[in-house]
């Protein structure tokens, strides 16, 4: 009897986690998916109405703005962060002095919450007293910088703040990747007469493929989840011009008592994450087996 219990210990230890996981992750996802097929508003109710909520969702101009914003934001956020991160990593990797201090500086924004980042940039970018005034004081008295209150430009302020926060992290990933490269390879290329530029372009960058892949997955994941930064920096405004799907979901599910629409938008977000994640995990698992 004692022996039996002893053998079951590993399973017993895992049991609470397993239960919590099946209820609070998979159960809850099923619950939300189910709810998105009902006409729930204030309270959940379980008469199924098919895809009505999804039709409502995609007929909602606010959701379409949020989706458009997500593409713009994700694309620019990833491209700029990758570029900056890679550039800083390559330069840092060239035996510079005070590398540690520089690394610390590039990476510290990652320790700060998006709410603090949003608050800081809201002040820096504010039209009256922020960057606009700074540049005007330098003598350019006609200078205008009003992206924060401009319907068409507000989403780009979110890109700026998000890049500031996350590009240092991309730098760290690339730097780790560069440090993993065998030095003799680079030396061999240089003995063959390849210039530094060519060495990087033809030999080192192709070897960084897994890092690119990993960084893109992480960054797009941050992008889809982005909620607090928008909330703190623009509040989704002006109007709803800088809403992202996560803010849309929060507004409709919790402030507007439109549970069904909120649930449907959450399910679409999950599908977005899966679309990125499944191919990635598939390729990771395959390379693990080889």
């Amino acid at each position, binding site marked *: 009897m004692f022996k039996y219990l002893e053998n079951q*210990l*590993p399973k017993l*230890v*895992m049991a*609470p*986690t*397993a239960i919590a*996981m099946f209820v*609070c*992750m998979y159960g*809850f*996802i099923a*619950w*939300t998916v189910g709810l998105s097929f009902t006409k729930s508003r204030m309270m*959940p109710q379980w008469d199924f109405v098919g895809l009505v909520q999804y039709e409502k969702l995609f007929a909602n101009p606010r959701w379409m703005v949020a989706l458009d914003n997500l593409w713009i934001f994700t694309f620019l956020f990833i491209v700029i962060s990758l570029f900056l991160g890679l550039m*800083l990593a390559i*330069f*840092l990797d060239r035996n*510079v002095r005070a590398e540690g201090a520089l690394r610390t*500086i*590039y990476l*510290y*924004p*990652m*320790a*700060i*919450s998006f*709410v*603090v980042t949003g*608050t*800081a*940039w809201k*002040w*820096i970018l504010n039209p009256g*007293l*922020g*960057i606009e*005034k*700074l540049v005007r004081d330098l003598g350019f008295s006609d200078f205008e910088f009003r992206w924060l209150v401009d319907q068409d430009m507000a989403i780009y302020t979110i890109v700026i703040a998000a890049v500031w926060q996350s590009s240092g992290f991309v730098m*760290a*990933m690339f730097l*780790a990747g560069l440090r993993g490269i065998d030095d003799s390879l680079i030396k061999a290329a240089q003995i063959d007469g390849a210039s530094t530029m060519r060495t990087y372009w033809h030999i080192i960058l192709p070897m960084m493929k897994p890092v690119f892949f*990993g960084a893109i997955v*992480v960054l797009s994941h941050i992008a889809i*989840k982005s*909620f*607090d930064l928008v909330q*703190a920096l623009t509040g989704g405004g002006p109007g709803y011009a800088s809403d992202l*799907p*996560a803010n849309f979901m929060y507004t409709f*599910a*919790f402030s507007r008592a439109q549970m069904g629409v909120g*649930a449907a*938008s*959450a*399910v679409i*977000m999950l599908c*977005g*994450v899966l679309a990125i*994640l499944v191919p990635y995990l598939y390729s990771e698992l395959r390379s693990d087996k080889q």
Partner: protein
Amino acid sequence: MSTINQRLGRTLIYTLLIGFALIYLAPLYVMLVTSLKDIEEIRSGNLIALPEHLNFSAWSKAWNSACTGSECEGLAPYFWNSVRIVIPAVMLSTIIGACNGYVLAQWQFKGSNMLFGALLFGCFIPFQVILLPMAKLLAWLGLANTVVGLVGVHVVYGITFTTLFFRNYYVAIPNELVRAARLDGAGFFAIFWRIFLPMSTPIFVVTVIWQFTQIWNDFLFGVVYSGPGTQPITVALNNLVNTSVGGKEYNVDMAAAIIAALPTLLVYLVAGKYFVRGLTAGAVKG
């Protein structure tokens, strides 16, 4: 010729690296100088000008008396709310993660790999998809708007990461160790306690820092699951900035933002190495 080129290249590299360092530092600098000015000086001067006198009144107002919505007690009560949420949530999720990781790496049973895969998926789900049912569950348990409820939510969705960290750390330890210890008659817990825990300090540090940063910086769970008396500091900061009674006080906003950022910044400065390790472990592998 080549030495001139080389020197030019070096200069370019240093210029760019230092230039970017200044850009990355600028927001922190702007926050700091703004928090030390009075409103008059903010209106007449510009973003980067140093304050004429050091004026800490914005700091004491942000801490003691600034309005966060209808309450005007400053950030202090919310700072302590965050502390009361973070400490138990970090401890519980780390301990559970350590036990889980130990089982998944060294005591595999039928289906344990599947379980790990299913758990890993939790690192990725957008939390929007669980927000509504979790709110129902908390209400049903009578834990809506309580610190206990928030701790629970952070623990449940934190153990995916902590388990991943510990599992990946323990999986590198050869299985023979456990087998030999069992032959000597040591049991499940004895092996964990006497062999695995003593060599786990680095991964404990990484995990605690990761969880501390995640939970301290959380806004989504805080804004959805907390009530008037239990809001964490991120939510209070956002309320403070968006409460405009009698004109905007940017200096108070900035002091408040720095207060909210200080704990995680300090952890980063003291233990940056472990912080980065957690980031890359959690991000690349998870």
